[in-house]
């Protein structure tokens, strides 16, 4: 029964990991920028959900709907006004720029919300489902389902809409996309906005499950790194595969050798993957 429980936990956590990483992966794949502010976006989303519930009594499901457009606009403007100026510069410059932005946002959050850990507690509590000996909390289940819906929406957007196809085209071959009449600058901004929106929504979902603090942003960022490298860049299915694999390795690892080593294990896995299979599990060029 323990094995089944570990598997179920990994499945639930894996979808959430995928949701954390997918916006990061989109930005990395399309803009070729490692977006270090991603972790802070997630935490900001979590605070949004917490504040909306605490002060305005807005349930997290509605917060999800509010967070998406807000973060999209925020990300869009950030890219247009700042990142776009250095988008052609080497890795080091864009990476350092997003690091600077992250410092500002994180410091602002510490300043306004303090570094205390907070928790969004739904009332009445949602309880948990137990089937035989396997127990799954309902809030986790709902968050996982929402994460899957979000990933599905992104998949549909990239697959069906005109903007989505343009994003995929830019990711595959920027120069060819320019020749086909795609406005690359606006696509970059839209992709970054989408990444931010996904991060914000992921944050709202995280608020349901994990404690909220500005200090947790680097942990989220670390997960996003690992998932991206494991699954492969810029693809929806890659992020899902990476998220599930990471959750599985962490779950099995912490059961067998103790939870203290779970993070080490995931980063060792990351380095091994980088060296042996840098294109990731489902590494292909472009989206499916």
């Amino acid at each position, binding site marked *: 029964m323990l094995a089944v429980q570990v598997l179920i936990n990994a499945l639930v956590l894996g979808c959430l990991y995928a949701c954390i990483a997918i916006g990061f992966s989109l930005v990395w794949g399309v803009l070729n920028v490692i977006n270090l502010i991603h972790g802070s976006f997630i935490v900001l989303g979590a605070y949004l959900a917490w504040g909306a519930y605490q002060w305005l009594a807005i349930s997290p499901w509605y917060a999800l709907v509010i967070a998406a457009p807000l973060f999209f606009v925020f990300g869009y403007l950030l890219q247009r006004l700042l990142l776009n100026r250095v988008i052609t510069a*080497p890795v080091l410059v864009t990476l350092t720029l997003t690091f600077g932005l992250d*410092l500002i946002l994180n410091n602002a959050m510490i300043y306004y919300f303090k570094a205390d850990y907070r928790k969004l507690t739904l009332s009445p509590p949602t309880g948990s489902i137990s089937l035989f000996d396997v127990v799954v909390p309902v809030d986790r289940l709902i968050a996982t389902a929402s994460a899957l819906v979000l990933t599905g929406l992104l998949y549909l957007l990239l697959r069906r809409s005109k903007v989505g196809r343009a994003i995929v085209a830019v990711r595959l071959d920027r120069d060819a996309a320019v020749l086909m009449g795609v406005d690359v600058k606006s696509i970059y901004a839209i992709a970054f906005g989408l990444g931010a929106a996904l991060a914000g929504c992921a944050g709202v979902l995280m608020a349901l499950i994990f404690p909220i603090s500005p200090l947790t942003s680097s942990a989220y960022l670390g997960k996003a790194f690992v998932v991206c490298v494991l699954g492969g860049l810029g693809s929806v299915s890659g992020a899902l595969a990476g998220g599930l694999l990471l959750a599985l390795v962490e779950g099995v690892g912490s059961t067998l050798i103790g939870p203290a*080593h779970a993070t080490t294990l995931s980063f060792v896995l990351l380095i091994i993957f*980088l*060296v042996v299979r840098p294109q990731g599990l489902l590494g292909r060029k472009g989206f499916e």
Partner: protein
Amino acid sequence: MTRVNLALLILIACVASLPLFGGAYALRIGTIACMYAIFALSWNVVGGFAGYPSFATAAFFGFGAYATGILLNKSVPLSVAVIGSLVMCFLLAAALGAVLLRLRGHYFAIASLSLVEVFRELVNNATDLTGGGMGLNIPLASGSGILADATFFFYAMWGLLLITAVVVIIVSASKLGFGLNCIRQNETASDMVGLNSTLYKSVAFGLSACFVGAAGGIYAAWVHYIDPSDVFDILYSVKPIVMALMGGLGSPLGVVCGAFVYLGLEEVVWRNYIQIHSGVLGVLIIMLLLFLPHGLISLRSGMFWRKAKHV
């Protein structure tokens, strides 16, 4: 010896006269200035010469600090412990470099970043050896008085800076430096003409790690207490990059100037805006990247030195 390198050595020599002018505070600032300059010079070997965006500085700083701390606790003399950490860091980094430097661009950046995480978690979990999250106490070296101690550690760090600068200058003028330059400009082409790029990159990574490790060792002995979240702070990886960008990528004089200017700014910001210091640092980084992308050295009038070589 070019005029730029001569200017660098003169600058470092000037720093040595610092104890004449100030008390314990000046010595503390001076020690940190030397440490930052070591970071920036070391990072410059792999980041500026070879063009690999390394975020591994904090990993080797922490490794050196812990290696020295553990050796000192086993009552090994300080000099032996620091030299031991230097050698260990060189070998470890060269071995890791041979594997990790096969990656390019973003992938290398991520791998070096996760090196810091792996080292921190390993130290955190090896409680028997390192004390884990409780940190590691390091015995007092001499106990000959606060000011004498501060002066000793200042000169220790300064001496290490001098050695680092001399080694970096020798490297930049040698075949190794030339090879690293080729790798930065076009690695495939330099492979084609028969350059052993793996060896060159490994040696460069080793060199960029060993002095940082030794600085970590001196730092550990200086502050007497280290813990994983302090010495494996990711900011130690980012600061050298900011310094190098501030001073001018690739030029040894530029990065050392960048380190001193950065420390000055950091000190002012810390003193005046303690609550928002990291936010102000972020603003500085962004302004720097947007408005001064080639560093302070690009402001020169051309009167004092010739065109910087590696920009």
